[in-house]
């Protein structure tokens, strides 16, 4: 990705050709590797201070795997992750803890991601057990109350258990916990997908407020392209383990050039009956191929209406192409207006 000037701060997180392949094995006693699921297969992203990078794509394209790699819940098969300029594969295990403190995760499911037997205070304060240096022991309770307050919950509920809260409130607890160690980066994997629409806006607005207040950088993963448009400054569109297009919010939503992004965007229903029949809806044929056996060349070619011979032979690199200013991984990248009415 090119280093375009940006209103945001310095680069805080960067991946280079990041890969995660899960081995596919056969046999019970003598396990033999027969292939691999290429869940994340060469991803380059960059995130600046104070910026939100939206990651979108359909089920199974590797979004959650990418998230787990970024926060260290999983080790890459190949490639590197640079956190504040440090290559994580080269950080000593002694320094790792303090480096990792800078990047925290908010999980998708507010119903299962919190330990039901712990009080809210213990859940939010748990990271201090691992990082006692962050808050002195006797200041802990005050800090936990402050965090509860920060996410708009009642600090007097510090001794309640998760089941005593609604889904949206539980997601706030997850956010408070992620903020406990004053990270600079938060990776949020579908943080509002499990919430009711009337509650979603509460959580989205909270994330935006916290970002303004603390200059947080977000990786915001979602399959809801409307929410991502609302919250993201830049967007990366993933298909079968790869980023196929990336750009700022306007470039992706108004000037998209990759056929997959175009199909994805055009499929999003718009809550406006006046636009019925006036939108350019691209209906894709066929199903998503298996990430264990991706098509040769361009991975999207089996569903692409523009595919030519070259698409099966040469993998189109993610790069800026003539007629457009943002990178796209399509041999025939071409702008097409797909959201809103066709003019």
């Amino acid at each position, binding site marked *: 990705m090119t280093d375009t000037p940006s209103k945001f701060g310095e680069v805080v997180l960067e991946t280079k050709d990041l890969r995660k392949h899960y081995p596919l094995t056969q046999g019970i006693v003598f396990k033999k590797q027969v292939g691999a699921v290429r869940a994340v297969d060469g991803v380059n992203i960059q995130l600046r201070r104070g910026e939100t990078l939206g990651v979108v794509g359909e089920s199974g394209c590797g979004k959650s795997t990418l998230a787990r790699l970024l926060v260290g819940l999983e080790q890459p098969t190949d490639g590197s992750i640079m956190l504040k300029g440090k290559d994580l594969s080269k950080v000593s295990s002694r320094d790792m803890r303090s480096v990792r403190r800078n990047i925290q995760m908010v999980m998708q499911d507010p119903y299962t991601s919190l330990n039901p037997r712990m009080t809210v205070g213990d859940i939010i304060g748990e990271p201090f057990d691992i990082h006692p240096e962050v808050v002195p022991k006797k200041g802990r309770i005050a800090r936990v109350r402050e965090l509860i307050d920060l996410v708009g919950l009642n600090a007097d509920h510090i001794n309640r258990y998760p089941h005593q809260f609604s889904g949206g409130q539980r997601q706030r607890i997850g956010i408070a916990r992620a903020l406990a160690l004053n990270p600079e980066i938060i990776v949020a994997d579908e943080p509002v997908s499990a919430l009711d629409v*009337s509650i*979603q806006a509460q959580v989205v607005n909270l994330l935006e407020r916290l970002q303004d207040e603390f200059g947080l950088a977000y990786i915001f993963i979602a399959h809801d*392209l409307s*929410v991502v*448009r609302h919250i993201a400054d830049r967007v990366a569109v993933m298909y079968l383990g790869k980023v196929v297009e990336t750009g700022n919010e306007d470039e992706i939503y108004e000037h998209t050039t990759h056929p997959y992004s175009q199909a994805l965007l055009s499929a*999003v229903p*718009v*809550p*406006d009956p006046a636009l019925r029949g006036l939108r350019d809806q691209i209906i894709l044929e066929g199903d998503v191929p298996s990430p264990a056996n991706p098509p040769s060349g361009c991975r999207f070619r089996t569903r692409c209406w523009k595919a030519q011979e070259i698409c099966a032979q040469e993998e189109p690199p993610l790069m800026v192409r003539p007629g457009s200013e943002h990178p796209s991984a399509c041999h025939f990248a071409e702008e097409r207006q797909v959201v809103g009415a066709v003019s």
Partner: protein
Amino acid sequence: MTTEAPVKSPSTARFLSQLDMTAPPLEVRNLHVEFHTTSGEAHAVNGMNFVLSQGETRAILGESGSGKSVTAQAIMGILDSPPAKITHGEILYRGVDLLKLSDEDRRRVRANHIAMIFQDALSALNPVFTVGFQLGELFRKHRGMSRQASKAKAIELLDMVKIPAAKQRVNDFPHQFSGGMRQRVMIAMALALEPEILIADEPTTALDVTVQAQVMGLLSELQREHNMSLILITHDMGVVADVADSISVMYAGRVVEDAPVADIYARPAHPYTKALLESIPRVDLKGQELAVIKGLPPVLTNIPPGCAFHPRCRYAKDNCKVPPEPPHYDVDVNRVAACHYWREVIES
């Protein structure tokens, strides 16, 4: 589809003679459903009303727990009772109250007249039988067809829902199909016996957007072709805007607004509808501020008195907080809203 006229048994003929074909395909009147729970009676459906007209697509929209699926299950006669209990109301199919029918007639309606598609297609299909067997079973059981004829029917149906290579795929098991394909198989099953009414309960919620577009497109096309009346249950205001003619917005088990789709989006008359529309981001708009609906959905064992929405409502005044609940005010022909202050809401 070509179906040879089914042989009518005397009991079928008796049932059919009760129907008033000039009455709307379906009308739900003042339906109440409760669940007996350890923390008291949960009032899941509290006076549900709507009329489904011939050939119409009516959306039933509401958030999780608002009573959409329970309403659908009551119509189909598949509620688990206990714990569920229908305490009031009528469900009229062509003028005949389904709640008063014998079990046999009820089954007849389910098999031949009103079909339903469930949200979770995988769990609705039997994993140990091939897709073809399960489709064919319908024709063997309800149409008395032979094995061979029913298999041909199954292939025809898979073709209709655009499963590629239907002749081969008919022998596959459900797990060999993708999520979108399974949902299309469910549509095929629901349409197999050519029902007049189809109830689709969140038919695309579990699917990716590109697959959702495929499935919704197919559903609309088949509905037109077969002149079915369709009830589409969803919480997605985008999907509703794309396909529905009219919409019933539910809150706490009750319709709070019922209107033609274009009207409701242009000028919502109930504060809840209005707040929902303002709180969802749109893919075609950037930078709009998301309005927040304060508070939480109601607890069904303890629904607020008066207007159930009043604790979260920015228009609420004292009379909203006490019984009776706001009646369905006529906002226009074909349009009602259950809010004392609908005039103010629609003008703001």
